[in-house]
């Protein structure tokens, strides 16, 4: 596997003067699901938002698919962002647009598809997230889980190589979270989309991720494969993640036996 996202010695300090990130380096391999865990204010969201430059680092470099984002012009950055989907805790759908128009939003920004192709792509994306029947609904008519699915469909409309997820399940109940995690899993395995997910919900990360990075005080405290159960973990969050990872793996094996 080759690194699809390569973050090198990135630092960021906000107005408050406390550094959010201190010389962080992190790589995301092509095709993996990487979780980023950390306490509130540890800098995990800031790190995720560096990956499409919603947050610009004070120093350091952010390379995505071989392009250094911080050196791009505004136009080049917009083009690069088309290859990076993103979903948010608050869904961030356009409330006054129908589900179909929300999914079409990124496609229309760049206007490359003719109307029949556009309709076809909208239908494909909604099918993918199991909302084929909701094309004409408005976000206000949907549940939280459905809204997040629309957001996933929208984020994938441009067929990006990467999907960034900023606390995608934090506003959802446990049942809905499970369904959403399965959708993300399918997006990864079937569409080969690399996923980076920030969450404070450790069971969710344990169930979904191949690898996790623990952020503490603006630094990567540890970074390990969840399948590696032999190495002792140095952080409390790391130990909890390893536990949830092992538990999810065991549940999956049992599931396979019963099936």
């Amino acid at each position: 596997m080759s690194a699809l996202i390569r973050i090198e010695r990135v630092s960021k300090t906000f107005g408050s003067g406390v550094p959010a990130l201190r010389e962080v380096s992190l790589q995301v391999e092509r095709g993996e699901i990487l979780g980023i865990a950390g306490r509130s204010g540890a800098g995990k969201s800031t790190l995720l938002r560096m990956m499409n430059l919603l947050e610009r680092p004070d120093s350091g470099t952010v390379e995505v698919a071989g392009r250094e984002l911080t050196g791009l012009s505004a136009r080049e950055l917009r083009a690069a962002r088309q290859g990076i989907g993103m979903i948010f805790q608050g869904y961030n759908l356009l409330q006054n647009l129908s589900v179909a128009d929300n999914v079409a939003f990124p496609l229309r920004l760049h206007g490359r598809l003719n109307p029949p192709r556009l309709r076809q792509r909208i239908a494909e994306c909604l099918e993918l997230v199991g909302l084929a029947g909701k094309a004409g609904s408005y976000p206000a008519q949907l549940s939280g889980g459905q809204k997040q699915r629309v957001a996933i469909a929208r984020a994938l409309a441009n067929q990006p190589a990467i999907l960034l997820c900023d606390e995608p399940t934090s506003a959802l109940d446990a049942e809905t979270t499970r369904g959403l995690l399965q959708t993300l899993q399918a997006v990864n395995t079937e569409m080969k989309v690399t996923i980076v997910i920030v969450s404070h919900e450790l069971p969710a990360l344990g169930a979904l991720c191949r690898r996790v990075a623990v952020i503490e005080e603006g630094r990567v405290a540890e970074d390990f494969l969840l399948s590696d159960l032999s190495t002792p973990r140095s952080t409390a969050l790391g130990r909890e993640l390893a536990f949830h990872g092992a538990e999810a793996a065991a549940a999956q094996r049992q599931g396979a036996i019963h099936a």
Partner: protein
Amino acid sequence: MPETLHERLLALLPELLTALGQTLLMLGIGLLAAVVLGGPLGVLLYQAGRHPAGRFRLPARLLGWAVNTLRSFPFIVLLVALVPFTRLLTGTSIGPLAAAVPLAIAAIPYFARLVEQTLAEVPQGVIEAALAMGATPLQIVLRVLLVEARSGLVLALTVLAISFLSYSAVAGVVGGGGIGDLAIRYGYYRFETDIMILTVAVLVVLVQGIQFTGARLARRLDKR
């Protein structure tokens, strides 16, 4: 006065219709200018407010200052002060067309502030999502801000229309005519209270109509 009330009202009808036409003309021109010029100005004010630092700082301050200055004028003072400008623009300083000039000048910064305020209520997250999808600044204005704020903008225009219906009464000072002017000339100067009541009734109907239409349209546009 030999006539009955009924006859007097009938005799006044042509004048009332003319006045109504003048009022609608003044209002139409003022609102059009507000939307066409005040709307973009409001977007600029909003953008300037979001980036208080950086390269827009000075132009943003100048813009805000200009808008505040223009809004400081009591309308009747603005009306008189703009006479030379009005004459330059329309060739005359009397009549509804001439009165429409100061109305427009007052409506532009008024609507700009209303637009700024309305756009500020669009949640930041939606704008961020559009940025993450690679939207240009213009696309964010046209495809996010205006879409998400559309019902608020209709309500802002409704507020503006009702305010300026009453401002247009002042336009009688420069011979602008209109319903308000009619009310002052007959009802006030000539003590014909029934005419006064009639004109006020027409204005009440107009205001109710504008408010009803605006609120209804806003509700239909709002899918939130």
